[in-house]
């Protein structure tokens, strides 16, 4: 699935090292006139466009670094989301591994993981894979209950945790119906700033990568191309095209959370633990 979008992102990462902090002149998220998904860009075209856009976005990068608050000067606010095509997922779990490596997630916890459900009995068996992660819900229960507002929604829709404000009360962990959050239980298990003791941890759509214009680690790594990430408000983006052309579902819609992770080809049987007729 080497669309223009992924070709451009791959070009970007081959050019720069995967450092976490954006540096001045880096390819910051392109302005609205260069859509995230389409356009006749090849690698050279991208580099020339990036140079001309670089000056313009340098100023925006400064404001964009303030937690996405600078997105206001765009024509439309970004609405980041992800589509997971379960017809493509092979259950290899490379996404889970890449995510764990990217964020130095503690032992026993996952920011993104893959459920496996087997149904039926020989010879009519079936196995389902369900990649899961924080759904970055539009009406997030976690943000509703956090006492210090440590968990919050950025302007671009990304749900973040301010690890300087989290008091470790774990109310958000109770509230999240998706079980997407983990907690750093050990104070002595935090070798560097990537892991903060006594606070809650979850998928943040690789905010440090997204802010630098790269896709999340799980999206980039997936060998089957099952994951697509981008701006749902941008009609030209690949994710928007997927969402408008394919039937999608979200997990647990009855909880009213309005997740921003959409699944294509989601079978009820794939969802572990949900009452599945006859149980």
């Amino acid at each position, binding site marked *: 699935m080497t669309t223009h979008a992924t070709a451009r992102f791959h070009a970007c990462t081959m050019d720069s090292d995967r450092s976490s902090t954006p540096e001045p002149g880096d390819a910051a998220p392109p302005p609205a006139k260069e859509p995230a998904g389409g356009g006749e860009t090849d690698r050279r075209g991208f580099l020339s466009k990036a140079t001309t856009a670089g000056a313009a976005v340098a100023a925006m990068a400064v404001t964009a670094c303030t937690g996405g608050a600078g997105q206001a000067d765009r024509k439309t606010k970004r609405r980041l989301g992800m589509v997971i095509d379960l017809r493509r997922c092979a259950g290899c779990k490379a996404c889970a591994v890449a995510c764990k490596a990217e964020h130095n997630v503690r032992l026993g916890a996952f920011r993104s993981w893959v459920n496996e459900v087997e149904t039926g009995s020989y010879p009519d068996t079936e196995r389902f894979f369900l990649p899961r992660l924080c759904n970055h819900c539009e009406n997030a229960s976690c943000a*509703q209950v*956090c*006492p*210090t507002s440590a968990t919050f929604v950025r302007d671009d829709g990304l749900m973040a945790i301010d690890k300087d404000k989290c008091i*470790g009360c*774990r109310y958000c962990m109770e509230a999240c119906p998706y*079980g997407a959050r983990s*907690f750093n239980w050990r104070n002595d298990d935090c070798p560097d700033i990537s892991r903060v003791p006594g606070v809650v941890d979850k998928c943040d759509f690789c905010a440090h990568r997204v802010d630098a214009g790269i896709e999340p680690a799980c999206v980039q790594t997936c060998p089957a191309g099952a994951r697509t990430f981008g701006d749902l408000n941008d009609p030209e983006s690949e994710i928007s095209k997927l969402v408008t052309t394919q039937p999608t579902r979200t997990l647990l819609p009855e909880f009213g959370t309005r997740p921003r992770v959409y699944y294509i080809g989601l079978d009820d049987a794939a969802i572990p*633990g949900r*009452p599945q007729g006859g149980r």
Partner: protein
Amino acid sequence: MKALFVLCVVGVIAGLVGAVHTMMEGQILSGANDSVPWGVDVAVYIFFTGMSAGSFVISSLSLFGLKKFKPIARIAVLQALVLLMIAPLFLLVAMGRPERFYLIYLSPNPTSAIAWGAYLLALYPIICLIYGYYLVRRDFGKPLAIATRERHDRLARFWGILGVPAAIMVHGYTGVLLGFILARPLWSTAMMPVLFLTSAVLSGVALLILILTVLDKWTKHKVEEGLIRTMGRLMLALLLVDAFFLLCEVLTGMYVGGSEHWESWMVLMEGGGAWSFLGVEVLLGLVVPAILLARNPKTLTPILVASGLVILGVFAMRCNLILGGQIVPAIGGEHAAYMPTVHEWLVTVGLLALGCLLYMIGARFIPLTPKPQAEDQTIDRVDVQGVPS
């Protein structure tokens, strides 16, 4: 008394060891995990705020015309205050970053029940203190003039009445805190604050009966037997109301077999959960005390036994709901498991001991029964000992 004092000091030291070690090593020393993020600390916190609120409500009953409860107003408010000073300490030990608790006051989230609680936990003890002050001030230092005492009576009445909704909220908020969580079907019910409040007043009365008995037996604060019997009857009424609400909740929750509510309640109906719910909370905590209280006993012993069982039952109720509610995940299927660790027990014992200690110190220095005042004959004073001054 001295032996109890020493025992409490030992308990406090044990608790300190557990608490400090936990704060150093992190929450890994508790039995909580990603599937069961809240352990027994949270349940005991709710238990203590419940008893505190219940005690305050009883203390204020005399302000609503029930003069019979006036003699125990000071004892009850001291109990309410001590319980509420200890309760937040359970939370601090359970938090990942307790040193950051003040952030709730600096950047509160208006939709977070925990944020509301932080403000209530600050406001309610202040009201307790002011109310208690106007009750006991007359027994410190120079005797007050009648006019001053009457003014204090009016102010005690004002703050006492104001304290009742504060007490209800400082415990009721924990009920809505749980009720808001759709992801936990056992918690997600409008009955949660109702159940919490009925068991709160129930446990407050029960603890008060026990403390009054201890005071009567071992200190100079004598309590009229009739008052204990009245409180026993009050406890029976509360028990029946609590049992009725619980029955409503269980019936509606379990009506549709196979539903998520049903699955959540089944955790408390089979295996270990059944021992704790049906055995302790229902049988020992509700049925047996009801039988003991329903008959009119010759001695006070059945009332005392019933009080002890009620406290045990309400404690079990808190644990069953908080811990049991986290067993079934909203998605993922596998039931979680939780077992409290030594550290959690040490902290619980330690803070209980601290509460006892604080109460004993309070009882030592605060006149729990009104002293005879100088020009007293004209004042309508209900004498605790039942004999005219």
